[in-house]
């Protein structure tokens, strides 16, 4: 008998929950000024989250998947992408979309239930939201193949949840990318819950990062509430992508409900959530910046006010959107087939979209 493989998974934290920075690991581009920017971006994501939740509660959005607690994972990874890198989300990365400068309205429009929300995201090198869990992962591998084939030098950064790592599509895509040495960075946004199912019930593996080992590619675990570590690990992976794929598991926590259709009281005691409050991703950056004299209550309230007015304006614009039912028929194929023309015409002529039933 002899050992034929020996694998380890490393865990990285740079800014701890008390706001202490490990300067030896800190990437040099994460200056204090950059940290202020990241803090603002995380705060903006949180403000949008709160707004979207309240809109849904008022019936002004269909459903919404909150990102509360996951801001560092999203903003840290987004900040590590280069403008031409391709971003492949699941359904929870509103923070990444925002950082990539997707319009706020379009994000709101998605949760209000209109396809038009996804019309322009190609221009920011983003793929559309993918609701069926993990099904976006093979697309990401394919997009990575295209980058390599066309020698663009770009990486593809794909997101999957802890639950999503149980799907075949997840394994199949990191495996595919490994075999072909594709520039694919897989971010596991491990918020420790897949609706009501806890992380331990998804896999007997001690870490999700170690799934990379089976694909023959590097995997690392980071404190997903530490925006500096998330940035550093993602940046290493993005730069290393020219030589092949890797996996970054970000350990965070879903502080809110799965979506607005979910009631966590059914399955999760509050004490579990309470324990994560001190590890908040914004709090630690704020502590750090305050200690350096770069942040205070006055700045905080000025920022909040500014964020709220930007968000309110975007919401108002999104709410002005008027759907045209014809768009449903006219965007299915590149050339509209006769069947759809007929069906559309009948609907218009017969007034199917409005009116009362005749006696």
């Amino acid at each position, binding site marked *: 008998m002899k050992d034929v493989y020996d694998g380890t998974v490393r865990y990285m934290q740079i800014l701890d929950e008390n706001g202490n920075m490990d300067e030896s690991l800190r990437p040099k581009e994460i200056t204090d000024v950059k940290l202020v920017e990241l803090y603002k971006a995380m705060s903006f994501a949180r403000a949008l989250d709160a707004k979207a939740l309240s809109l849904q509660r008022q019936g002004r959005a269909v459903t919404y998947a909150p990102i509360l607690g996951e801001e560092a994972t999203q903003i840290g990874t987004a900040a590590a992408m280069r403008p031409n890198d391709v971003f492949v989300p699941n359904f929870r990365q509103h923070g990444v979309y925002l950082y990539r400068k997707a319009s706020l309205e379009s994000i709101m429009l998605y949760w209000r239930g209109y396809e038009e929300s996804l019309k322009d995201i190609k221009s920011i090198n983003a793929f559309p939201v993918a609701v069926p869990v993990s099904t976006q992962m093979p697309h990401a591998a394919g997009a990575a193949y295209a980058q390599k084939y066309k020698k663009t030098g770009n990486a593809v950064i794909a997101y999957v949840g802890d639950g999503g790592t149980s799907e075949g599509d997840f394994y199949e895509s990191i495996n595919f990318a490994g075999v072909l040495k594709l520039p694919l960075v897989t971010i596991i946004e491990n918020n420790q819950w897949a609706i009501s199912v806890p992380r331990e019930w998804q896999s007997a593996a001690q870490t999700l990062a170690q799934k990379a080992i089976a694909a023959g590619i590097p995997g690392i675990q980071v404190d997903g509430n530490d925006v500096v570590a998330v940035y550093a690990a993602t940046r290493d992976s993005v730069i290393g992508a020219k030589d092949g794929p890797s996996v970054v598991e970000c350990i965070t926590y879903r502080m809110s409900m799965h979506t607005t259709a979910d009631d966590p009281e059914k399955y999760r005691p509050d004490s579990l959530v309470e324990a994560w409050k001190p590890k908040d991703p914004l709090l630690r950056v704020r502590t750090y910046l305050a200690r350096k004299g770069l942040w205070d209550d006055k700045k905080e309230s000025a920022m909040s006010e500014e964020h709220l007015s930007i968000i309110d304006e975007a919401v108002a614009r999104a709410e002005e959107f008027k759907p045209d039912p014809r768009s449903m*028929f006219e965007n299915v194929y590149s050339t509209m087939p006769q069947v*759809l023309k007929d069906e559309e015409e009948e609907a218009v002529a017969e007034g199917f979209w409005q009116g*009362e039933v005749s006696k």
Partner: protein
Amino acid sequence: MMANMVTALNNALDQIMAENKDVVILGEDVGKDGGVFRVTDGLFDKYGRDRVLDTPLAESSIAGVSIGMAASGLRPIAEMQFAGFMLLAFSQIVNHAARFRARTRGGYTLPMVIRTPVSGGVRTLEHHSDSPEALYSHIGGLVVVEPSNPYDAKGLMIAASHSDDPVIFLEPTKLYRLFKQEVPEDMYEVQLSKANVMKEGDELTIVTWGTMVNVVNNVVAKKKNVSAEVIDLRTINPLDEETILKSVEKTGRVMIVHEASMSFGPGAEIAARIAEKEIFHLSAPVVRVAAPSLPYPFPGYEQYYVPNELRVSKAIDKIMSE
């Protein structure tokens, strides 16, 4: 007891579990959470984790594992969280569940049920509103059931649990809590593959099922001048052709109303059978009312997609004027 469809199904599953300890429930969030629609509520506490299994998030394995269980003496009842996500299990269902019996010439049977919420009208996100009955009916080897009311839901679920063939059990989300009905406390079966003539009539036959049953009934109730016979299929496949043909012979006019999209939908199959066997009894062409021939849209558009009372009403006017 007065029950909505969720309570009726929950009650059925409870009785099925109590009746036979080889029955296990498996799926995503079926345990403590009781399923995202609460259909399995309370069963985890009552029967434990060995019999009410929160699986890892992987639909292909939920179906495949159910097949392995059913082939090995258990009677699994799997839940797929939504019809759109059940497609990740399509290979297992089509390549294996549908043909295990035929391939082994009856050597193996697969007593298993796969339940899933279907259809729209409740403003859910994309992929949460599909009506896939044609997909599963097209294969052969699968029993495809879709109740439209709490009484049928309980009776069909119990019948499905006793069936030795794989049953795809489609539950319209719109109807889960739409209304309550008197449902017997005791166990009872509603026969599979047997349509329900909900209302008798002699001028027009309307064949429908699932979410469209209420829509049709509402319109028919308003159209006092038309004597319509309303047939709720309840089981899509194998089709109860006899009930349909008998009605068509009487009325000479037939309309098929379904929420699934028009092209290659289940209405085409029914219309073809009527054309083959009853064409000389027809006094007007068959009329189909269905969603347009395109994928289910985002919720902001669903009101323009799902057939509504107005469409059904106009279709009745049209067929009656021919």
